[in-house]
């Protein structure tokens, strides 16, 4: 009995410790959003704020056009997720389940995109977007984001499609389903867990991405949240407390997205369970 209690305490204790370590950065951010620079950097780095400065949150809305930046980040992130998932699902299906001459070559070509660092292609990207007249529209960032995320998402979907038994499609085709019908009604629902994981990863990437947005967006009306945060940085230092408040608010959607899809991600790790006899 005592042994069992002890082993429970030790296993749960260590897990609890791990939870605390994982969650502390979020708590720290929350505290920091109520402090001023002096507390953040010098007098009270890790603890509970001495004075709860709610004005940081008021400033976040007054000084900082939070609603506009939020809207822009949402449009960019959701647009990127939608287009990426749509294109990579179709491509992966074609590459994984259909026999055509350059299937493997095309897949390797798509995967190669993973190895191209963003910084290298910034200048050509800027020239391209200017020539295609994408500048000063959301597409100036959405198109590069999609291009960068396609390789990662096709790898995931490809692996999933490969793991499904061919008999499913055979029976569908015997029942008279067209390729499209098979794809949309049968195959896509089967890879839902993968779609969920890709959605989360791509959304987080687009939500947090800074470098491409910095270079491609110059119009204030199109700025995303990470760019908006630059507003607090001046040559004479930054208002970190208000920045913290904005960061807390802008972290909420990502947490919600994660909570919504986390179950699907767990399923994704056990894909075979999606196909039951």
């Amino acid at each position, binding site marked *: 009995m005592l042994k069992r209690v002890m082993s429970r305490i030790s296993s749960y204790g260590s897990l609890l410790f791990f939870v605390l370590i994982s969650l502390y950065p979020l708590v720290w951010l929350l505290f920091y959003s109520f402090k001023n*620079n*002096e507390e*953040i*950097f*010098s*007098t009270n780095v890790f603890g509970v704020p001495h004075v709860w400065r709610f004005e940081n949150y008021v400033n976040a809305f007054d000084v900082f056009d939070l609603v506009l930046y939020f809207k822009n980040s949402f*449009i960019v992130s*959701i*647009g990127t*997720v*939608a*287009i990426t998932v*749509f294109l990579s699902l179709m491509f992966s299906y074609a590459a994984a389940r259909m026999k055509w001459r350059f299937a493997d070559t095309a897949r390797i070509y798509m995967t190669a995109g993973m190895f191209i660092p963003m910084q290298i292609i*910034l*200048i050509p990207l*800027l*020239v391209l977007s*200017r020539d295609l*007249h*994408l*500048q*000063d*529209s*959301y*597409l100036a960032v*959405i198109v590069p984001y999609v291009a960068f995320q396609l390789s990662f998402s096709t790898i995931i979907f490809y692996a999933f499609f490969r793991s499904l038994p061919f008999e499913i499609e055979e029976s569908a085709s015997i029942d008279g389903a067209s390729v499209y019908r098979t794809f949309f009604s049968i195959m896509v*629902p089967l890879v839902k867990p993968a779609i969920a994981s890709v959605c989360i990863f791509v959304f987080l990437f687009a939500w947090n991405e800074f470098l491409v947005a*910095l*270079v491609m967006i*110059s*119009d*204030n*009306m*199109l700025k995303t949240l990470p760019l908006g945060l*630059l*507003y*607090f*940085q*001046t*040559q*004479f*230092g*930054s208002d*970190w407390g208000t920045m913290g408040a904005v960061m807390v608010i802008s972290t909420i959607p990502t947490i919600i997205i994660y909570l919504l899809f986390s179950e699907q991600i767990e399923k994704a790790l056990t894909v075979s369970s999606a196909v039951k006899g």
Partner: protein
Amino acid sequence: MKKMKSHAMAIILLSAMVALSGCGSSNKGADKEVSGNKEEQKPETVQTVKLKFYAQYSGQEKAAYDAAKEAMKKIMPEVEVEFEVAAQDDEQKIKTYAAAGTLPDIFFASSGLIETLKNSDNLLILDDAVKANDIESKLNETSKAMLWNKDGHSYAVPNVGQWASVLYYNKEIFDQNSIKVPANYTELLEAVTALKAKDITPLALFAKEKWTGVQLLDMAIVGSDPGGLKKLDNGEGTFADEAYAQGAKKLEELTKAGLLSKNAFNTTYDDAVAQFTSGKAAMLLNGAWAMGALEEGLGEGKIGLLYTPFTDADKVDSVQWNISGGGFNQGFAVSKNTKYPEVAAKYAALISLEFNKQRVIQIGDPNPVLVEDVQPEKGFTPIQQEYAKDAVNFKSMTTFAWGFENAKFKTVIEDNSQKLLAGQAADDFIKDMNKELERVRQ
């Protein structure tokens, strides 16, 4: 249920598409001004001219920009400027713009950036605008030199005066601990040792920005040789020279005595300021431009300025006003590819003066570039008065690290001065630097 989900998915997809297709056309007006249309090839007449202006349009300077823009409406009513907030990104964005040929019409350019963009033929020469608008006669004597680049042209009209590099000190800490405010090197070393013993960081250096270490070295050298590191940048002298070797040795000695905190190289500006204003650090190195913000943080009358505390006691009187820091041809530059070269050049030249005037009025900048006597709205604070009084006596200035013209030298001195401050022996530093100087001067 499944149907519901797939419908929802379809609706999300559709709405995203609609949102996207909508935004592609939402900015047609802006598009036109960037890419230009055929009709606008006419000569520049009274039609509205829209200019993109990339500047540090945030924080306390925002008020000065806004006021300058308003004043410019009276002088050039046909011009409409749209500010873009410059990123604190080490000029990454503006250089990318230059490489892609999409520079904004007017942008803030440091002297280093001016050298880079001059070589890539991206800058408009402003000589005509400077002469036509009689800019030189409006600048005071110390600022006239900053109008011209060493190649004899003007690429930007100065919009801020020459700033000294300063060691700010917290008067209260020195008073409370009965430590004498250092007037020469011997006293500085004593003060550092005494502060260290009391567990107070003697100097908060935000060495995450490499220029601060270079500036500290420059201040240490200027006490013996007014040329400072600028002289080396110009290709004269080496670290074998007495003044330079002595400067390095002084820093070695101070570092051993505990001048900096252990994590100085991870310290950002905000971090250093927080240490300084909270009383954890006694001194802080920065340019004099930061005095207003620092005084606000510490409280009026509680902050003092040191210009040359590294000088040997017997030389103080003769070198007291040899100052580290300075100014150079930097300010609002104009892109060579702008569609309205004449208008943009005139606007950039005039708004530089207006901006400086408004800096005095709005922020109380005690360091004007204009002949015209301008008074700040709220009057000068004690420290601004002190600086204005001192500035009259300045005999010579060097430069800040971003004003070095030899980019290789800048990199080398930044890296090596960090090593010196991290505890490298001064002799090794001198040996390394002399080797590097030979290399960068080839």
